[in-house]
């Protein structure tokens, strides 16, 4: 379908969607405005009934109107994605399911994600780019945080994960990570860990040397440095142990020729296999891709699969507070088409189309 045809089919939906958007926003606003009065009324009612020690029940009841408002806004967001993004994705030959994401087990199989206590996925996009079938999804990872008021989940990572099926195999695993960030998201490179340890132990030793004259007890400066260095030492030990964990990815750092590439990425893997993939041309293309993307990303190439994890990406997001008109639609179309084409741009940058063609597997 041509761009004009897609635009025409989507324009027909604009008026009813805009009416729904206004209605839902109004309802959500009313529910939020109602909350303080509702809280006051409940308080009065609880006091009139002489109910004591029911603070949790009161808080639960107070949360109903804002909860309803957020739920309505969530439904509106899904409707906009379903009605606008889905047809666009389908017109470009992809399958798009806004409410579903990559299953957690599948996402973890990438080996790129850090350990998380809770996983959320959405925006499942599947399709084929040339000879490469792919699946992708937006994800968010949460860590359990215990406070005196109870346990809550804090989001510490969000992004987009792509999984490509390759028509050829990589004999050994190759990893690509943002410079200094470690082979998986949420980590740190060995150089960074060692750097921290060196600085803190250096300061500790310096403290000991300077405090030579003071014989009575441990001088404050030494004790301070010792305490400060402990978490880093612990981190270093945990990192060291993780190196022995099977399946933690390749550990050997590959230093490549391009200075620009080295400033942006760390490559890991077998020295020869990694260089076969990361040729000077690919290094240059990856630098351009990273600059155009504006977000850090990790990648793994293993057997017949390639994975890419882009940090901070949130695809196909409609702005609920922006009136739905032709101008907005055109802006969405531009942004979402770019999102949909991201898989192709990554494959091009990695030189994988060329690689497939060289192996006689370049057909679609």
């Amino acid at each position, binding site marked *: 379908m041509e761009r004009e045809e897609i635009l025409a089919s989507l324009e027909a939906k604009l008026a009813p969607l805009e009416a729904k958007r206004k209605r839902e926003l109004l309802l959500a606003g009313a529910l939020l405005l109602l909350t303080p009065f509702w809280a006051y009324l409940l308080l009065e009612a609880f006091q009139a009934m002489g109910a004591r020690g029911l603070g949790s029940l009161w808080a639960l009841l107070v949360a109903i109107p804002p909860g309803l408002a957020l739920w309505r806004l969530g439904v509106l967001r899904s409707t906009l994605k379903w009605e606008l993004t889905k047809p666009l994705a389908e017109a470009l030959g992809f399958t798009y399911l806004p409410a579903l994401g990559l299953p957690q087990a599948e996402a973890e199989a990438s080996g790129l994600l850090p350990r998380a206590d809770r996983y959320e996925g959405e925006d499942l996009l599947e399709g084929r780019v040339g000879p490469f079938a792919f699946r992708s999804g937006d994800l968010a990872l949460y860590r359990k945080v215990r406070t005196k008021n109870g346990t809550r989940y804090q989001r510490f990572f969000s992004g987009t994960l792509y999984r490509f099926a390759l028509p050829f195999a990589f004999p050994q695993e190759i990893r690509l990570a943002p410079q200094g960030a470690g082979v998986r998201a949420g980590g740190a490179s060995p150089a960074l860990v060692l750097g921290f340890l060196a600085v803190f132990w250096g300061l500790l030793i310096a403290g000991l040397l300077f405090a030579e004259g003071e014989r009575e007890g441990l001088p404050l400066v030494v004790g301070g440095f010792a305490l400060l260095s402990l978490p880093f030492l612990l981190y270093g030990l945990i990192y060291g142990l993780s190196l022995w964990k099977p399946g933690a990815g390749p550990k050997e750092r590959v*230093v*490549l*020729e391009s200075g620009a590439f080295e400033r942006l990425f760390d490559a890991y893997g077998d*020295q*020869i296999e*990694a*260089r*076969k993939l990361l040729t000077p041309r690919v290094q240059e293309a990856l630098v351009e891709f990273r600059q155009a993307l504006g977000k850090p990303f990790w990648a793994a190439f293993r057997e017949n699969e390639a994975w890419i994890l882009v940090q901070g990406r949130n695809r196909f997001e409609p702005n609920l507070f922006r009136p739905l008109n032709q101008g907005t639609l055109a802006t969405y179309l531009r942004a979402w088409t770019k999102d949909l084409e991201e898989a192709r741009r990554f494959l091009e940058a990695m030189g994988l189309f060329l690689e497939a063609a060289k*192996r*006689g597997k370049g057909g679609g």
Partner: protein
Amino acid sequence: MGLAFALGLVALLVLGSFLTYNALVARKNGVENAFGAIEAYLKKRHDLIPNLVEAVKRYMAHERELLERLVELREKASGALREGNPEEDFRLEGEISRLLAQVRLRAEAYPDLKASQNFLQLQAALTEVEDSLAAARRFYNQAVTDYNNAIEQLPGRLLAPLMGLTRKPVFTLPEEERERPDLGKLFG
């Protein structure tokens, strides 16, 4: 206090020398390891050349001179590899690469050859080996650069002459390989 300081300084120097010595040995071994990888791929390529020549000579009867030159160069390069003469070997390998590119280009003019499964398989194997070879050369150059930096910068510069370590050459492409191929000339 003075004695403790002097002893501390000596201990630091001894520790520094050990670390530098180990680092230089690691760099030297790194270069040898990288050269070993090049040798392995060169041997693989040498093993493929007779099969390739055998597969194409039936079709490319007019290219006998080119194929004979390829076989001759392969023999010479194998000899240089056995004798451990890397510079001569690199020069000959450059020439072999150039001739293999010519064989591939000229094969385009023989439809029967292009359709031969045996030739296609050999060509794929050769491409794979040449990609690996190119990567191995880049690995070797990186290892040599690290090694040369280590022996020319302080503190390695003080220890390297005592260990008999000298600069090693990086692998450079021959002049003819850097230029764009003249297709007209190749097709004669």
